């Protein structure tokens, strides 16, 4: 059952979409979205030319964070180790694998069952002010940074 009415979810989604599209344009992401299913598909090119495809589902947004999952560029399968990047820290977490951040719904299930979904936009977990990554543009841009900075990006997870 949905946590909030779909009209409200859609309003959040459509309000944040234009800025995320603007980021896609300036940062060079391949972009597609489906306003009916409240989903986006973002193609990133990493520092070494590797391609990563992020699928985001924004049902129950923003009562809950989106479900973010990488798609394997070879097999099209979601959530394989090969689909995920490897980073310098646990942001791209091998458990799941998942994006391990309060803005990633999968992290609550796979790594942090004690986190409260309701707190995701105000979390200060690990002394990070996650509020600044609580918009579609904010979270997708942070993922871009993790794929394009030589200190943070370490290739493919597997």
């Amino acid at each position, binding site marked *: 059952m949905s946590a909030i009415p779909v009209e409200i979810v859609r309003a959040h989604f459509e309000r944040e979409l234009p800025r995320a599209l603007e980021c896609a344009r300036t*940062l060079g992401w391949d972009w597609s979205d489906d306003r009916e299913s409240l989903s986006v598909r973002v193609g990133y090119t990493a520092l070494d030319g590797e391609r990563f495809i992020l699928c985001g589902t924004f049902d129950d947004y923003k009562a809950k964070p989106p479900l973010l999952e990488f798609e394997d560029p070879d097999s099209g399968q979601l959530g394989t180790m090969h689909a995920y990047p490897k980073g310098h820290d646990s942001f791209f977490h091998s458990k799941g694998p998942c994006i391990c951040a309060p803005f990633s719904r999968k992290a609550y299930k796979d790594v942090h069952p004690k986190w409260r979904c309701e707190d995701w936009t105000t979390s200060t977990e690990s002394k990070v*002010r996650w509020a*600044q*990554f609580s918009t579609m543009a904010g979270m997708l*841009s942070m993922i871009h940074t993790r794929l*394009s900075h030589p200190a943070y990006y370490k290739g493919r997870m597997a």
Partner: protein
Amino acid sequence: MTLETHAEPTPEIRPDKELDILISSADEDREFDFKRSTTVGEAIAVAVNTFKLDPNDAYDLTFPKKPHQKKPSEPLPKDRTLGSFPEIKDGTQLILTARGGGV
């Protein structure tokens, strides 16, 4: 007929001349006036403060990706001055990126 050549005078580039830069964070764009002698690191500090972002996070400035570019733009070295980049002129857009955390 005598041909005279007139070399265009090279415009004087003063380190204190201001550059009008557009900085884009993930959620907003703002214009900033910086001296050419301002370092990238100093510009980041001003932008982070203006955007009211978490001062404890790690930030970089990059150029937007150009259409022909195959890979993402890399962060600009923080110790270089804005004026030392030939690409940075009045009206140039720079992207402010944030590292966030791994938890």
